[in-house]
């Protein structure tokens, strides 16, 4: 378990509606930032701001050094090699780097080196029914542009991926399997090993959407065995506007870029361009350097807490959120209720209140000072699978306490009465 960390997070000390203390339970959407992250960004701007990898002047040297050591820090956080980390604006951009790179490879860009990334008619691109739009639409559009077929691993009524007949979904025709490490709606942590094993059997590439895992769980790219992985700093106590794509070096060096510009090239003439190796080939234009420096501060903060401790802390909160919500009359918890070991769950609970729309639920919670997210959380297909349009989601992070979780459950208990739908 973690100590009370709220003093590290300036925003958490503010009050909301009528001076109520804030209970921030919307971290699956975006997390709050500790002082060390804000200070790292501020210090960069105040002392070391310059264009990186360019210019021979002292400040440019310092900026370049900060830029390079941030990459090493983020790489270390997921046990990757430094030059396997590509900076991206967010996780969405990281997924697009891979999917659009494959589209470009399929269009002949990148020559024979990129042939392994080509897809076309007869090939299959496989996702799952629990994906965030960010890990669905890029693949859908890759299929649309190349003539490949998009298929998906279905989920059961609890939102668990159905892996029993995995072999019939992930077939020999599968070229790439993209799936989430943990669901932003049910909180279920995926069986990565089973999925990777099958992908390897059929020679498919794997991409892991780690948006909801890197902030909350120990993540080791080597142990996971996937080929690509994406994350977003803003969910990891880091700044907005920065994320990372990790990939095996030999894959990244062969994948064609899909955003073109300065600092990605060896040489350019008016008619021809030769790309640098990864990560530079993917980092077109001036990079979000201050955010990268802040991102590194965030992973150092998380590492100092210890990701095992973070996970244990959030499991305790998950128990209160999930068991508390599920026990309320007229409240449906999306995802497994009780019967899944909490080791396999994130610290979040998405609920549907009988007879009350998510917006209205959220409003009552907001009035009690509890910040949650309402809507489909960029995951329409899964909500549709559950037979609902939207839900209300409470999600925790390192700074939340068990009391926060209890406050959520208590306020949730008042919702049906407020709207006059209690039995």
């Amino acid at each position: 378990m973690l100590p009370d960390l709220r003093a590290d997070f300036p925003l958490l000390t503010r009050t909301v509606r009528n001076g109520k203390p804030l209970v921030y339970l919307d971290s699956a959407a975006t997390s709050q930032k500790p002082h060390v992250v804000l200070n790292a960004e501020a210090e960069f701007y105040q002392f070391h701001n310059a264009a990186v990898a360019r210019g021979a002047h002292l400040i440019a040297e310092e900026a370049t050094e900060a830029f390079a050591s941030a990459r090493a820090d983020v790489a270390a956080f997921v046990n990757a090699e430094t030059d396997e980390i590509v900076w991206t604006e967010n996780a969405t951009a990281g997924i697009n780097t891979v999917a659009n790179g494959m589209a470009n490879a399929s269009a002949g860009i990148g020559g024979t080196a990129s042939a392994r990334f080509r897809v076309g008619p007869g090939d299959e691109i496989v996702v799952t029914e629990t994906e965030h739009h960010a890990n669905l639409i890029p693949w859908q559009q890759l299929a649309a542009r190349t003539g490949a077929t998009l298929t998906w691993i279905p989920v059961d009524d609890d939102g668990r991926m159905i892996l029993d007949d995995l072999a019939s979904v992930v077939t020999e025709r599968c070229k790439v399997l993209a799936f989430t490490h943990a669901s932003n709606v049910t909180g279920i942590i995926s069986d990565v090993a089973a999925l990777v094993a099958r992908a390897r059997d059929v020679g498919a590439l794997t991409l892991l959407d780690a948006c909801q895992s890197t902030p909350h769980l120990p993540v080791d790219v080597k142990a996971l065995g996937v080929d690509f992985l994406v994350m977003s700093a803003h969910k990891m106590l880091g700044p907005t506007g920065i994320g990372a794509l990790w990939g095996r070096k030999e894959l990244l060096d062969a994948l064609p870029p899909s955003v073109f510009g300065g600092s990605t090239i060896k040489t350019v003439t008016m008619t021809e361009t030769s790309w640098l190796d990864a990560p530079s080939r993917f980092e077109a234009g001036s990079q979000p350097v201050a955010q990268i420096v802040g991102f590194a501060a965030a992973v150092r903060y998380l590492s100092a807490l210890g990701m095992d401790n973070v996970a244990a802390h959030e499991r305790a909160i998950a128990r209160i959120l999930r068991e508390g919500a599920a026990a309320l009359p007229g409240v449906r918890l999306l995802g497994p209720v009780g019967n899944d070991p909490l080791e396999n769950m994130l610290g979040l609970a998405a609920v549907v209140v009988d007879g009350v729309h998510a917006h209205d639920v959220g409003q009552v919670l907001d009035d009690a000072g509890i910040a949650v997210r309402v809507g489909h959380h960029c995951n329409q297909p899964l909500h549709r699978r559950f037979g609902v349009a939207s839900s209300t989601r409470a999600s925790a992070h390192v700074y939340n306490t068990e009391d926060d979780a209890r406050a959520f459950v208590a306020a949730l208990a008042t919702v049906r009465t407020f709207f006059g739908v209690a039995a």
Partner: protein
Amino acid sequence: MSQLEQMYQQVIMDHARAVHGRGLKDPGLVSVGESFQVNPTCGDEVRMRVGLDGERIASVSWEGQGCSISQASVSVLHELVEGETLEEADRIIEAFRALMQAKGEGLDEEREDLLGDATAFVGVGKYPARIKCALLGWMALKDAIIQAGRDTDHD
């Protein structure tokens, strides 16, 4: 009354519980327009159909799902607009928009009179995120009138 209760006034609660005008009707008229609007963050949606009889909005019917604010708002809209002239509807639509922008303050008497029951939505103006909910049906109405070949405002 708390700020929350100010938003969820009884009129709104009543409309939300028993909406008016739901169920698409065939107006049996020459000028019929339909519009489908979605709130992309929550998936709430409304399909609005109007039938124009010359300068009069003879029929207003709709289908959809959403939160109490959006449902009550489209229900009130149905009550206010069906049977009105296009010109009058235009004034009502503009008054409702103005109410949403008023940050929880009321409007002048003339426009409040126009809005009738709909003035109960005054509290929504204090919650910027909910204004979209309240306006969903009204945007559909405006668009449906255009689809029927007319425009409500002339600026």
